[in-house]
């Protein structure tokens, strides 16, 4: 074989190798361009990148007294982008400069994507206040930055009710205000019973009375003028529909007791029941293990469950890490955590902090 023939053959082989390498590289690049971790497939329903909530830093743009002891804050973002949308009934978590976290219903216009509006009543230490509302009143002056999380909605306004009845006690008007406006704008049938200690202490009275017009849609009952409201009489004045209540426990109990047949009841509590009085004991059935434990007033579901099932996972014991999330099969849950989404709250709970609303829960444990 001549040397020139050998050289030509070697050159051809080299060309082939280089060509294959280039083609392979191009094919790889194309695949990786379309699928960054090629050859791994993607999970059909991605989990990452959809956090439960996000923190926003907002600036107090306006701080004004809208009634005796009630301050309304307008919170704006320093950035140009729109704030996350919300619907009537939603609330924000305010992370106050001291670290206290407090929930306040949004009472502004949902169409306004440049700011959020909340209103808070000052609750003194003699009324069981723990400093959150005082901080809002005294520290969150105009120009101060505050971190918020949310908005989230645990008190949604359902479409399509034949009629809406709203019952507000004092500052409990905040989530209902946005609801009244929405139902009125949609041309719905609504009535409002608004109770408070005195007219001066009740925010948004003027606007609500204007919305109510000349008819009897808005009934204002100020305790110092007319005593306690006749809840039964007010509820009895209309047909079955959706009843939305936000106010003190006593008012919510009164509404629940006087609910007309066929009406649906929607409650928003100011704070966990614990703030109002002591805890109560209840039973927890652990369905899979076939056992039942009693959760005493001074203990947690987690502690009671761990006594039976010592390997139950948990960690922070304060309702933020999510490790102890358990599926709930039966029973009404009193959620006390800051973590779970409304969807998750439907059928699960963080057993380190949350409790039963009634006397019994059934866990998938």
């Amino acid at each position, binding site marked *: 074989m001549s040397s020139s023939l050998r050289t030509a053959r070697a050159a051809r082989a080299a060309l082939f190798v280089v060509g294959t390498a280039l083609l392979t590289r191009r094919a790889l690049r194309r695949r990786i361009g379309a699928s960054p971790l090629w050859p791994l497939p993607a999970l059909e329903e991605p989990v990452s990148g959809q956090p439960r909530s996000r*923190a926003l830093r907002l600036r107090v743009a306006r701080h004004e007294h809208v009634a005796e002891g009630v301050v309304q804050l307008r919170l704006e973002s320093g950035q140009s982008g729109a704030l996350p949308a919300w619907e009537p009934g939603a609330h924000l978590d305010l*992370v106050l400069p001291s670290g206290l976290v407090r929930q306040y219903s949004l009472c502004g216009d949902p169409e306004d994507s440049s700011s959020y509006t909340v209103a808070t009543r000052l609750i003194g230490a003699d009324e069981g206040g723990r400093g959150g509302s005082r901080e809002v009143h005294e520290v969150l002056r105009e120009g101060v930055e505050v971190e918020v999380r949310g908005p989230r909605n645990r008190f949604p306004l359902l479409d399509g009710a034949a009629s809406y009845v709203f019952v507000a006690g004092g500052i409990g008007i905040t989530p209902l205000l946005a609801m009244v406006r929405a139902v009125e704008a949609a041309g719905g049938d609504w009535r409002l019973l608004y109770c408070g200690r005195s007219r001066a202490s009740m925010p948004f009275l003027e606007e609500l009375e204007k919305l109510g017009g000349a008819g009897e849609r808005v009934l204002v009952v100020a305790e110092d003028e007319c005593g306690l409201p006749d809840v039964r009489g007010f509820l009895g004045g209309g047909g079955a529909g959706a009843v939305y209540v936000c106010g003190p426990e006593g008012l919510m109990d009164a509404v629940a007791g006087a609910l007309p047949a066929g009406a649906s009841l929607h409650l928003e509590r100011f704070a966990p029941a614990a703030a109002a009085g002591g805890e109560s004991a209840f039973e927890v059935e652990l369905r899979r293990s076939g056992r039942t434990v009693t959760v005493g007033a001074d203990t947690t579901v987690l502690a009671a469950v761990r006594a039976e099932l010592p390997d139950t996972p948990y960690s922070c014991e304060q309702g933020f890490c*999510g490790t102890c999330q358990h599926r709930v099969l039966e029973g009404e849950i009193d959620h006390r955590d800051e973590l779970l989404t409304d969807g998750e709250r439907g059928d699960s709970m963080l057993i380190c902090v949350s409790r039963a609303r009634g006397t019994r829960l059934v866990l998938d444990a």
Partner: protein
Amino acid sequence: MSNTKARPPQPVASEHIALKARNVSFSWESTPLHWLPGDPFTTHTINVLHLLLPAGERWFVHVYKQVLPHIRDERLREDVIGFIGQEAMHSQAHDEVLPHLREQGLDPTPYTAQVDWLFEKLLGDRTLPPGKARHWWLLERVAMIAAIEHYTAFLGDWVLNAEELDRRGADPTMLDLLRWHGAEEVEHRSVAFDLFMHVDGSYRRRARTWATAFTALVFLWQRGARFFMENDPTLTDGKASFRDFHRSGRAGTLPTTGDMIRSIPRYLSRGYHPSQEGSTAQAVAYLASSPAATAAEARTNGAV
């Protein structure tokens, strides 16, 4: 073949500390896309953490929940419980960065959906049938986590000392996220290894899972940096190469290649114990001054 009888690795006693999750919260509106000014390569190389950690640390928690019944040592159990909560918070905190990247025109979903598949499916519970194989698979994953934690502690120690990032004006919120996370990684760096030694401790498994974890990390990291550089809307021809990595290492904005290489034989040494690396005192000192950790502390005290 187990080496536990021959010479069990000794922890440095002074480095043990009670672990607790911190309820941190970061807001990202004011963090720029290139949070290390003028250095997209370093920014994105570190950003790969946000791609891997939400799914990865969720997986740690998932695996560790299953290993709890196998722990026979109360102090280790407490450590593991503290570790789980810290990892859950790391996962949540990094997950909140992802929508911010998306809003700045860099959608991470194509990559994170594949990382999700890796941790949820390939490394999930159903990779092997129940019974003995399932138990072997649990031990294998516990060992992988110990190997990965060698690197998270390495990175945590690095970021706590990476003063070059401060000098170059890195975004303070991002730096606090990285250092809070890094400090907790240093704080709990012994837990995964202690757990592995407690439930198994086989040297062969340790070496094998190190090889798997190391290869996977190199693969994921180089693809992640490349993904970000190629899809960054502000770069016309973004590329990531090993040469860039080496250069950033020399500049002090990433770990050096030499340090990375030297960390390999340390993990594979039979006398290795994580407490020999990094400084708990430095981690604790950072956590005492970290804006996010101190706010979390206030929140915890305020909530009681």
